[in-house]
């Protein structure tokens, strides 16, 4: 497995598509999550209405709110990027038929799969670190520009926030990889994953969150559970305009996401081990 992990690391490092995806994620984080938000709240457009004054709202981008700002920002865009990355990593092997070349080498199917999983886990860890570091730097610069004072959350909160971020990114990466294994097609894996994310999680999950009956079903979706975890990291101010219904507790959210992670890995391994390659 370690041999496969080393091979996967080399492949992932040399693949430009991965760097572009991470770059896009970080640019969106800085621009949408920080710079544009700060500009809007510093110079609110005419007719801007809020129960909370913009001078308070802009604290969203200051160090004190680093964790919730990252988690909310990553809920959709982070998930989308990691689905693409996981899908690309697995489905490309079938598209290029390199899976045959790999499997003819020494390691065996499960070692190949777990080597890939380890490499993707490492990737999601590095992405989480990059996101946290860039968010910290950007929020620090913005608070300096603003001339305000704001301090970073305590180390424990930062660590918990980091853990929550990594767990969520890892689950979405595993989801992308699982789809790649199931469909064996890059287009189907990425298309299917993003359609699920935007239609089921974002649209249906957003519109029917308070609908009795459907609400109980929604509680099992990974995105809804990620949202439950993220709600345990509140902003330092209360914004009545931004209140959304949280369907699950942080603990249930964490357990559900870990269950999904195990499911994707175990079922993915069963599929990979039993199905013919090149049939």
């Amino acid at each position: 497995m370690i041999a496969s992990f080393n091979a996967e690391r080399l492949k992932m490092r040399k693949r430009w598509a991965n760097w572009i995806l991470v770059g896009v994620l970080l640019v969106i984080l800085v621009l949408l999550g920080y710079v544009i938000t700060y500009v809007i709240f510093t110079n609110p457009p005419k007719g801007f209405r809020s129960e909370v004054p913009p001078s308070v709202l802009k604290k969203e981008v200051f160090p004190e709110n680093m964790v919730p700002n990252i988690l909310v920002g990553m809920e959709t865009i982070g998930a989308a990027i990691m689905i693409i990355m996981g899908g690309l990593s697995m489905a490309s092997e079938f598209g290029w038929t390199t899976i045959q070349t790999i499997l003819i080498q020494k390691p065996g199917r499960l070692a190949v799969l777990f080597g890939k999983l380890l490499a993707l886990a490492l990737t999601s860890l590095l992405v989480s670190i990059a996101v946290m570091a860039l968010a910290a730097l950007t929020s620090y610069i913005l608070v300096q520009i603003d001339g305000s004072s704001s301090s970073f959350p305590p180390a424990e909160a930062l660590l918990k926030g980091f853990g929550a971020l990594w767990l969520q990114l890892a689950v979405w990466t595993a989801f992308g990889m699982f789809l790649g294994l199931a469909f064996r097609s890059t287009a189907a894996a990425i298309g299917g994953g993003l359609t699920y994310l935007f239609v089921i999680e974002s649209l249906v999950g957003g519109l029917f969150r308070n609908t009795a009956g459907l609400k109980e079903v929604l509680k099992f979706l990974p995105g809804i559970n990620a949202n439950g975890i993220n709600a345990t990291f509140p902003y330092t101010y209360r914004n009545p305009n931004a209140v959304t219904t949280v369907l699950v507790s942080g603990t249930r959210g964490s357990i559900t996401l870990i269950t999904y992670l195990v499911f994707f890995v175990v079922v993915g391994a069963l599929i990979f081990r039993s199905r013919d390659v090149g049939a």
Partner: protein
Amino acid sequence: MAQSLAVETHGLTKRYRTGVLAVNDLNLAIQSGEVYGFLGPNGAGKTTTLRMLSGLLHPTAGSATVAGASPGSSASLSRLGAMVETPAFYPYLSGRDNLRVMARYCGFSVNRIDAILKQVDLAERSRHKFKTYSTGMKQRLGVAAALLKDPQLLILDEPTSGLDPQGTVEMRALIAEIKNEGRTVMLSSHLLNEVELTCDRVGVIARGRLVAEGTVDELRSRSGTSTLLVRATPADRAQKLLEELLGKDKVRLASGQFHISVDPSQAGSINRRLVTDGLEVTELRASEQSLEDVFLQLTETPERKG
């Protein structure tokens, strides 16, 4: 290798989920150190067999031993180098990096890469991306990846497919070199001259079944029919005379040459008769059954036979 058989299959069968029976009760025995040609027309089941031997496909029935272990097991794969179908590598990586990736999968040191790149004549282009390689270079990289593990057994699926004549000659030379290193080579092909020039023994597969096996000479001698080839002028008079002499069904004119289905020992009397009748005989020889003839006989489908 302690065992004398590099590949052994018993009743190996593969039926796809679509219902297609690709390989049917295949029994193979490939000796260590030989170059074994696995010959068959397109769709005969060659690649399916090689995929099963490489552990990519699970057989529906039967069993196989590859390099002394079950196909796809770590023990078997560590002694097996294979290029099945088109060589598949990462297009965004260079040839060298592709080999580095494969070496890492095997847990081997990358020290051998330079020597192997030199052996397959890819050293100069090794830092170029795989997607820029010609078909011949891709095939050679495929062989390089197969050689990376220093395998005892090498499985090559249509290694000259898509190569120009120069590339084909180079690939043949490479296979000969690999054989001289004492490795067993299983070479699948539908190109008869390739098999004829390269292989010690040949197995012919048709419709998923092994229909013949032996050396090229043994296969040639399987067909008892012999032919005399005669070229004589004027051709119309020669044809009339030969048909009167031997019967219409035994004489066939093709490309200005008469193919006569008789025992070659009659060559002298036929020659004498033609000359006596004032015909000029410019060629008269016994035709050796070509591998192509044998191949066509063995692999002829019932539809073709009509």
